[in-house]
């Protein structure tokens, strides 16, 4: 008889709000230096909120190693990006053949070329950041971990992106599956290796609403082309909204499929059944509420600074700057407490671990020093919410 366990998440809205508010104010005041410690503390908090069979996850990353990783990334990226950017600008200047200023095509091309120079690094950083997070996660004192295989990920990422681009997004499931399988198959809990089962074609049903949205937009575009403007615009808008929600739906459903087809060496397996409705409700309703709250706050800030117009300019600049910082920190804290944490909690509490009776056989693995933490992800600004 297989024993099934559902992880729990202890949602403490006030606690996380206070923590995020406090740490983002500190990050502002230290010109961003504190952000490494802010991320660390938020992760410690969130990891500690998750319990599996009553035992909490533990985050062992430190702010200092993140700062050191960031500095390391800066050293390498300064040289790489500086030279790449320089050469691209030079090439761009050489390709400026037309003297027509309206012809912005050349500029667009050179901007895209420099994006292409950064893309492989983004993929590299994505893998490294995930490996870092895994290696700093413990449960029952047993480490998670990932192989050092970021460059293989970069290669697959480039190939899959080309496939995705050529097929106008229709083969997105191929990319999603290939990349997740690459990472999952190189992941461990202690001595036990993860395995990603399933096939990429099974993700096509998850794309249903994306395709419907695309089709509706296409019809709308056709109508506009046939000069039926009002109806065409309405249909296009509906198609666009459908497509957007379809994208969220794909994210949720593909996560569910991929998680439900993961197994852990030694007779364990995972299952996941998140609800798209819940996620969309959280994102849409809470984003609206957040927009309302922040506009009230910034309205107050504007009102206050208007009222202060006759004070000395320095005093009013300081007051406006402080209110701005508090406003931003407040927004970040609310977004975490109302949107990010509930969604995380939803994903965790709708998942299951089967074969739990085999857990005791899993052994410890070696620690992963990880030279650069997630410095590349941080320098390239793909850190995410936590």
């Amino acid at each position, binding site marked *: 008889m297989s024993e099934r366990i559902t992880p729990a998440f202890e949602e403490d809205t006030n606690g996380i709000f206070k923590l995020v508010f406090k740490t983002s104010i500190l990050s502002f005041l230290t*010109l*961003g230096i504190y952000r490494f410690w802010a991320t660390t503390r938020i992760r410690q908090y969130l990891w500690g909120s998750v319990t599996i069979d009553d035992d909490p996850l533990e985050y062992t990353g430190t702010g200092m190693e993140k700062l050191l990783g960031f500095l390391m990334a*800066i050293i390498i990226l300064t040289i790489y990006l500086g030279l790449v950017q320089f050469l691209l600008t030079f090439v761009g200047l050489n390709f400026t053949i037309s003297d027509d200023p309206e012809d912005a095509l050349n500029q667009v091309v050179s901007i895209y070329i420099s994006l292409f120079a950064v893309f492989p690094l983004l993929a590299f950083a994505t893998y490294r950041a995930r490996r870092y997070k895994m290696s700093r996660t413990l449960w029952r004192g047993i480490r998670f971990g990932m192989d050092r295989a970021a460059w293989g990920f970069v290669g697959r990422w480039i190939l899959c992106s080309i496939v995705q681009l050529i097929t106008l997004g229709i083969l997105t499931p191929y990319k999603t599956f290939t990349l997740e399988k690459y990472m999952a198959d190189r992941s461990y809990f202690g001595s036990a290796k993860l395995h990603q089962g399933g096939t990429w074609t099974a993700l096509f049903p998850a794309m249903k609403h994306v395709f419907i949205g695309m089709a509706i937009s296409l019809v709308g575009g056709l109508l506009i082309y046939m000069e039926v403007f009002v109806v065409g615009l309405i249909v296009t808008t509906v198609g666009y909204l459908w497509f957007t929600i379809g994208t969220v739906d794909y994210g949720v459903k593909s996560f569910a499929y991929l998680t439900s087809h993961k197994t852990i060496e030694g007779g364990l397996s995972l299952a996941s059944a998140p609800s798209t409705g819940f996620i969309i409700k959280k994102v849409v309703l809470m984003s609206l509420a957040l927009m309302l709250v922040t506009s009230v706050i910034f309205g107050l800030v504007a009102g206050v600074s208007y009222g202060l117009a006759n004070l000395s300019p320095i005093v009013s600049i300081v007051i406006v700057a402080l209110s701005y910082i508090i406003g931003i920190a407040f927004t970040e804290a609310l977004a975490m407490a109302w949107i990010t944490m509930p969604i995380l909690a939803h994903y965790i509490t709708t998942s299951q671990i089967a074969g739990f009776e085999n857990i005791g056989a899993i052994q410890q693995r070696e620690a992963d020093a990880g030279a650069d933490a997630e410095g590349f992800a941080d320098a*390239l600004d793909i850190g995410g919410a936590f």
Partner: protein
Amino acid sequence: MEIGQASYYDGKSAKRISVTLGLSNDRLSLEISAVEFDRPLSWRLSEIRGAGNRPTDTNLQLYFGQHDARDRDKTPARLVIKDPKVIAYFERTRPSLFKRDITSSDKRSFMKRTVIAVAAVALMILVILPGLAGVFAQFLPVEKETALGRGALKNLERVYGKVTEKDAVYCSTPDGDAALQKLTAHVVGNTKMDYDLDIRVLNDDMINAFTLPGGIIILMDGLLQSSASPEGVTGVLAHELGHVVERHTVKNVLYTSSMAGILSMIFGDMSGGAALAIFGEQLIGSSYSRNAENEADSFAIASLTNAEVDLNGFAEFFDLISENEPSVLDKLSYLSSHPISAGRATKVRDAATFQKTIKAPLNQEEWYALQHICD
């Protein structure tokens, strides 16, 4: 003395061991006993630390070992306590449970990497990129540079044509053009020129002049109007020609675009860092362009000396600029990208003392025609 129950994980496997916690007789150690153990484990209380940072009423995780977080990862045995009474006991008796120490090895590697990172960025921004810009600017074919300049000029005409209230964008009269050509011939002298110079007078009251890639120089009418003598205009023209000869516009494009990438990466993710990046860009960009201005000034001094044009007239022009910067803010923005006018005037005056022969670059009629080119 017994304290309560807990779960123990030995750090070697994920197997749960139910344990009883107690105090040793000397009350200095925690005794952890279980049926699986031959004899109880003993953890010195002073070396017990909290794992994670979240002691809640229902959950406390402890480890035994050194105090800093890295060693926490190296000593993976854990005690997970659920009993609120036991948690309260630990919080009461061990207030420094979550204290962290920064080790000296952390400090050392922090210092080392900070120094290397700052050095790498400084080397790149202050030495390598300006050097590369200088070298690569020579490789850009003149016709490409000219095409760039033409593009920029068309853009300028389009934008300026929309905002100006004047009838025409440029000014031109037969006599004025002739005077301008004469001045140009003076300042070019025997300098080797790769460009077909294109010098125009823009119908605007601002006291300013600038250079576009490919040998395009724009003088503004305000400059001609307010200059007390033809020497002042000659000096400005020579200065702009310096920018053309030194290919400053191309160097500047190459340098600032590559530098901007680096700065936005360093400051990009910081809260409020975008502002910091723009500020840094301004600061470094300005010092770079100050350098270029100095080079152009030196070219102008040499060119005027060769053409035997009185440098004092050029110096007076700088006096004019410093008088005509009305607000403090305008002055600051100008000063940030140009050397201080007074200093430039002094430099030019110093050079003027070495001039042996001087002659007027334009006669009265020509100067009149140039000043009234926009009438």
